[in-house]
């Protein structure tokens, strides 16, 4: 059972595993793997919590209802699966600063959090704008050969490569 305690598997083992997993999510649950809608549903739940049910509901949350659905549980499961995997291999670490960030940018925790938070806002906003993320478009949509997903996936990486280059090669 060595493979369970290994820190890292071949990317091909992992990729083929995710591909096979997607057969079963379609076959058993009739759902593609996706994640980002869950964060919009969570936003709707917080909106309801803070402003109350009486507040006029935003049109978006009438389309994307603030409920716990299959995908919401999938995202909860990801947290659990990654926790189990990292505990088995001893790779679980409570860490504020990722090492590449630390060696290029520094060990100021607040700065990492500010940039991370800003990135999170763009990620949340952009995934709703594009109607999907690296899972829903990047993996599940491209394998269905959807034009919307191929355009999105290419733009995810184009925007990401541009910003990473700007931050690490120009600003720093």
């Amino acid at each position, binding site marked *: 059972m060595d493979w369970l305690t290994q820190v890292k598997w071949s*990317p*091909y083992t992992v990729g*083929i595993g995710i591909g*096979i997993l*997607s057969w079963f999510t*379609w076959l058993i649950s009739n759902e593609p793997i996706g*994640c980002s809608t869950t*964060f*919009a549903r969570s936003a709707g739940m*917080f909106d309801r919590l803070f402003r109350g049910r009486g507040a006029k509901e935003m049109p*978006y949350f009438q389309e994307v209802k603030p409920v716990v659905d*299959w*995908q*919401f549980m*999938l*995202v909860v*499961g990801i*947290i*659990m*699966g990654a*926790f189990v995997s*990292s505990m088995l291999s001893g790779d*679980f670490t409570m*860490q504020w600063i*990722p*090492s590449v*960030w630390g060696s290029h940018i520094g060990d100021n925790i607040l700065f990492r959090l500010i940039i*991370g*938070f*800003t*990135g*999170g806002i763009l*990620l*949340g*906003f*952009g*995934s*709703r*704008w594009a*109607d999907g993320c*690296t899972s829903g478009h990047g*993996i599940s*949509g*491209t394998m*269905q*050969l*959807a*034009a*919307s*997903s191929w*355009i*999105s996936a290419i*733009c*995810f990486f*184009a925007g990401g*490569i*541009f*910003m*990473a280059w700007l*931050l690490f090669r120009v600003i720093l």
Partner: protein
Amino acid sequence: MKSKAMKLILGLIFGIIFGFLLQKGGVTKYDVIINQLLFVDFTVVKIMLSAVVTGMAGLFAMQGLGWIRLRPKSGSWGRNAIGGLIFGMGFALLGYCPGTIAGAMGNGYLDAIVAGLPGIIIGSWLFAAAYPLLKDGILNKGYFGDLTIPRMLKLNNVTVVIPLAILIIALLYVMERAGV
């Protein structure tokens, strides 16, 4: 009622497997994501492309057998290109995406829990707030519906799936030979 609960439990089980695989693949880590965007480490692309080849072969076979019916998302240039670029910039700043951030949380990464997660939720809320202004304008620019590559090329699915699978496998082979 029972089947609804069953569906949620299945979602959780699929998620546990997905999270386990993401963590074993290393993509729950900021370092792996940012090194992909800087062309230092190609783990992310290798995982995604091998998942797409495997998934695509199975899904189109199962659809051919009538077991499943695929649902490609509809879209537009305004939606997918602009939204994709905004997403990409956030992807590079945070170093996690909506799926891998859940994995990063399970991996113990505090920047994901304290900064990334609230950021994604607030960003999603901001989009919901802006939605009425965007809905009939920019989001509809260049609308193409649920177009797929085979329909765009006026070819049947198999005629696209097989060459594309060969192309992706060849690309992965070249990447391995080049030592990236």
